């Protein structure tokens, strides 16, 4: 049994698959955005080529920067996201590592990169990086709260903190998105902000402060950081699918054994592509917000949206409908 577990950990839905899945997610996102902008877009192999090229580039550490810490930060972020992905149900309604409170763990692990971006920007001894890191932390407050609240909805509905139970409850076709559409919208928008993509890419606002915290990052560190970003995109989409779209299950379709896992995987993949399409649409259709506009918008629209959703779920719970 443990050999299968190690195989699960390292090869299939584990690290190796996650790398491929992350590159695919980035290619899919860039290709969609390019097609929406009437352009051709990069070839499938592009993210992999970017990654290998960056690995082979010279690794410059600017003076006045703690070299070891600076090199370690991208690896921390990489490890955090890799573990978060393990708890995503892909082959069945629950991942073998799932336990009682794994939703909380996943949410915490997905917050870690933003804190590390702040540390990265701060230690890189560059004015733009410092300004970018201050912005990314300021932006952290705006989207973390609605992100947690939106994730709270389905957990409240099923009264359990395990992603596996949430997916199992949705097996009968009653996907959380049907009952909690507001929660889904809040989660998608907060996810876009967490990934710091347009319209929320204020910390790396290319046209304002060069590349924000990433200004001084080069070579291997930049390669790992970009890879971590892609994995965060893939994990975020997988979480959205698990919580709101019933994970790898289809109403009325249940197969055991190998075929079940096989079908479950493709169902999961289809739904993730749908979520990625939504994110790419957001990215192509909107321009960047200003930091103070984001603050007002976050507190006055995003958080209330999630709160209302929680309220509705509570009322439904009391009325015993669920």
């Amino acid at each position: 049994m443990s050999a299968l577990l190690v195989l699960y950990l390292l090869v299939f839905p584990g690290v190796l698959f996650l790398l491929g899945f992350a590159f695919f997610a980035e290619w899919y996102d860039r290709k969609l955005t390019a097609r929406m902008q009437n352009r051709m877009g990069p070839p499938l192999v592009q993210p992999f080529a970017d990654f290998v090229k960056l690995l082979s580039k010279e690794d410059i550490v600017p003076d006045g920067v703690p070299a070891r810490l600076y090199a370690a930060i991208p690896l921390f972020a990489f490890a955090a996201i890799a573990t978060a992905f393990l708890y995503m149900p892909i082959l069945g309604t629950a991942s073998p590592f799932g336990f009682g409170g794994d939703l909380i763990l996943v949410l915490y692990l997905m917050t870690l990169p933003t804190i590390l971006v702040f540390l990265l920007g701060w230690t890189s001894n560059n004015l733009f990086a410092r300004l970018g890191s201050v912005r990314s932390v300021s932006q952290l407050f705006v989207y973390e709260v609605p992100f947690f609240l939106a994730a709270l909805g389905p957990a409240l509905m099923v009264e359990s903190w395990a992603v596996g139970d949430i997916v199992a409850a949705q097996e009968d076709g009653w996907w959380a998105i049907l009952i909690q559409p507001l929660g889904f919208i809040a989660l998608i928008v907060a996810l876009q902000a967490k990934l710091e993509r347009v319209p929320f890419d204020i910390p790396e606002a290319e046209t304002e402060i060069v590349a924000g915290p990433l200004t001084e990052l080069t070579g291997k560190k930049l390669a790992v950081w970009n890879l971590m970003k892609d994995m965060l995109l893939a994990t975020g989409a997988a979480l959205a699918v698990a919580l709101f779209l019933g994970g790898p299950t289809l109403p009325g379709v249940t197969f055991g054994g190998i075929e079940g896992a096989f079908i479950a995987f493709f169902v999961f993949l289809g739904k993730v592509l749908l979520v990625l399409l939504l994110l790419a649409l957001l990215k192509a259709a909107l321009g960047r917000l200003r930091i103070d506009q984001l603050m007002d918008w976050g507190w006055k629209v995003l958080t209330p949206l999630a709160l209302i959703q929680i309220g509705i779920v509570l009322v439904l719970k009391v009325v015993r409908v669920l």
Partner: protein
Amino acid sequence: MLKRLATWARKKSPWILLFNSGACNACDIEVLSLITPRFDVERLGVLAKGTPRHADILIVTGPVTLKQMERLQRIYDQMPEPKYVVAMGACGALGGIFKGLYHVVGGVDKVIPVDVWVGGCPPRPDEIIDGVVKVLQLMDDDAKHGGKGWRQKPQEVAA
């Protein structure tokens, strides 16, 4: 094997950085129209990057004015190896129509080593893409000869 993979990756994702060292911005708008729908270099893997740290190819437009001289030098030093420089248009080569003016130094190669010159005033976007492709071929040759040392200096070629 690893070396071939690295060279293949470098050829597949050349990130460019545009630096205007005193040009009349005709070359700049032609380089910019590379990333727009009609020419779209993203399909070749080319991305326009904002910081020298992330860039592989530095595209310099214009004759180097005295004021831009040491800034151009600083930008070039900040770029990680292996780095390449494309000098754009007649100005990048020998100062073009601005040659001999009191505030102009002349060609880009007076300040930093240049790998590829793209002719024209301004060169058409497809000529610029051809310039980038030539840099990619240079990457191949450099990988075979281990670094840039094998190349003849332009003066030697002329002699």
